[in-house]
């Protein structure tokens, strides 16, 4: 049971006078990849932070696997949802192993140290992600792509059913993007429920089973990528002319329409 049900969700930052989330309703299906698409400031990150209880209180209802989110404390929630933020700044030069091991925290008592079993889980995940070669490298010396994979590894050793990733492919080159998207797809295939935000509709076509387009704190449309991502809807949400085309090999490609630059 790892479905997420969001009903009429409203959230407002403490000092603000307006809601960021303005009655959003959304269903995240279990064991699937859900991509959240939406312009900057549409409320994607805010939604995620409400889901991991960084931001509260909220209005409306959120059910995680049948439980009211309000009834789950952060300790219980950390065994259900793990979180990969867009960027993590590490000031101290921890090694990959030391950093990923911190993902085991929810399974350890407050005064406990990680055990050999925790260490084995970490090594196994690092092997799956082909990171065994950089286990003892220091995080600040890693490339952007490696850092992202290490963040994902930290979330994976948490052994949760749901993983939320905030723009996991931002600032990555094409090769690293493909690697991260492949890992996300693989996680869903192993039964995990994945939610990720992105600015690139093509990524939704590549790996998502389900797409939610949000704008101005509300859900605009939700469903399989092929039915949701249309030229009309993207133009409405982003305010720019786009083309959605099916290539000969069946791949759907989304891009900004070249005509709009002719008048500039």
């Amino acid at each position, binding site marked *: 049971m790892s479905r997420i049900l969001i009903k009429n969700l409203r959230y407002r930052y403490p000092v603000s006078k307006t809601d960021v989330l303005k009655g959003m309703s959304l269903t995240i299906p279990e064991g699937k990849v859900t991509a959240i698409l939406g312009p900057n400031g549409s409320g994607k990150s805010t939604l995620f932070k409400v889901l991991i209880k*960084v931001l509260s209180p909220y209005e409306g209802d959120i059910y995680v696997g049948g439980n009211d989110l309000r009834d789950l404390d*952060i300790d219980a929630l950390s065994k259900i949802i793990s979180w990969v933020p867009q960027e993590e700044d590490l000031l101290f030069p921890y090694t990959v192993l030391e950093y990923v091991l911190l993902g085991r925290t929810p399974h350890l008592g407050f005064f406990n140290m990680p055990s050999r079993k925790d260490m084995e889980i970490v090594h196994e995940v690092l092997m799956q992600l082909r990171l065994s070669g950089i286990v003892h490298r220091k995080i600040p010396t890693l490339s952007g792509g490696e850092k992202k994979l290490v963040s994902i590894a930290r979330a994976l050793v948490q052994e949760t059913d749901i993983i939320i990733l905030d723009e996991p492919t931002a600032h990555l080159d094409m090769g690293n993007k493909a690697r991260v998207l492949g890992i996300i797809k693989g996680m869903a295939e192993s039964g995990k429920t994945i939610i990720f935000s992105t600015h690139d509709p093509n990524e939704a076509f590549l790996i998502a089973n389900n797409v939610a387009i949000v704008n101005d704190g509300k859900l605009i449309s939700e469903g399989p990528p092929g039915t949701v991502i249309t030229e009309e809807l993207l133009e409405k949400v982003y305010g720019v002319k786009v083309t959605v085309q099916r290539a000969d090999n069946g791949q759907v490609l989304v891009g900004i329409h070249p005509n709009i630059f002719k008048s500039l």
Partner: protein
Amino acid sequence: MAVLSVLFVGRYTLNPFHSMNDEMALTIILRIRLPRVLTAIMLGMALSVAGAVMQAAFKNPLVGPEVLGVSQGAAFGAALAILFLPGDPLKIQLLSAVFGLLALATSYMVSSAIRYGGRILRLVLAGLAVSATFSAGVGVMKFLADPLKQLPELTFWLLGGLSGVVWRNFLYMAPLATIAIIILFILRWRINLLILDDDVIISLGTDPKKLRATVITLAVIATAAVTSIAGIIGWIGLTIPHICRKLFGAENSRVIPASILLGAILMLIFDDIARTVSAGEIPLGIITSLLGAVLFVIFLSRGIPHE
């Protein structure tokens, strides 16, 4: 070994092989040197572990317990006692511990009133203000102090040192400092979480505010306890954790025990230098600042960045 050897070093050099039969020598060892040695060990452990965990808690490798005004608060408390409650060194110790902890509480309260920056920056800014206020108070005390009797005593306390430490001083501060150090030692792996972003810490099921407050409070208790007896001892809390990170890596389950051990050893050596280099005693705070700063530069100028 270090403890045993330093017991016999000092203004009056004692021969370890003859001391057991010499009543005078035994008295010096048991009543003067042993409490001093134990206090130096406790002082080094407390300041080093406090520095290590404060640097993690503030996500800043350059902070120490003094950022929250603890040192200046303790100094103000000591100054109050020297001026208005003369005659009993224990009153100096008590008041300085109380004002050190009061500075922490004030910093926390002021930080919640500040409307600028994130939680950590607010605490640092509040600490700056509290520190400056107490430092002004110390200035007033210096101005009011009797220049012949009270001012030298105050100045000597502010320079920091362990001369005149007896069992009573040690026993009054030891329990508080010991408990704080032991809890921080037990929490050494958990403290690693504090280097992560707050949203990630929450997603790992831990309340970052509570963890940070717990760790900072314990560090300040340890600091206030030893500062109350030794005065202001600079550069140890900054230098020792940095040396340990250079030697053993940044992870706190290694940095914390290493800081405790190295802090104890180095403080013993520094205190030995303070009491043996010249006929009169050099204040310990001068030695730690001088040698601490030199070691800091030596260690940080070696190796590649990020190491």
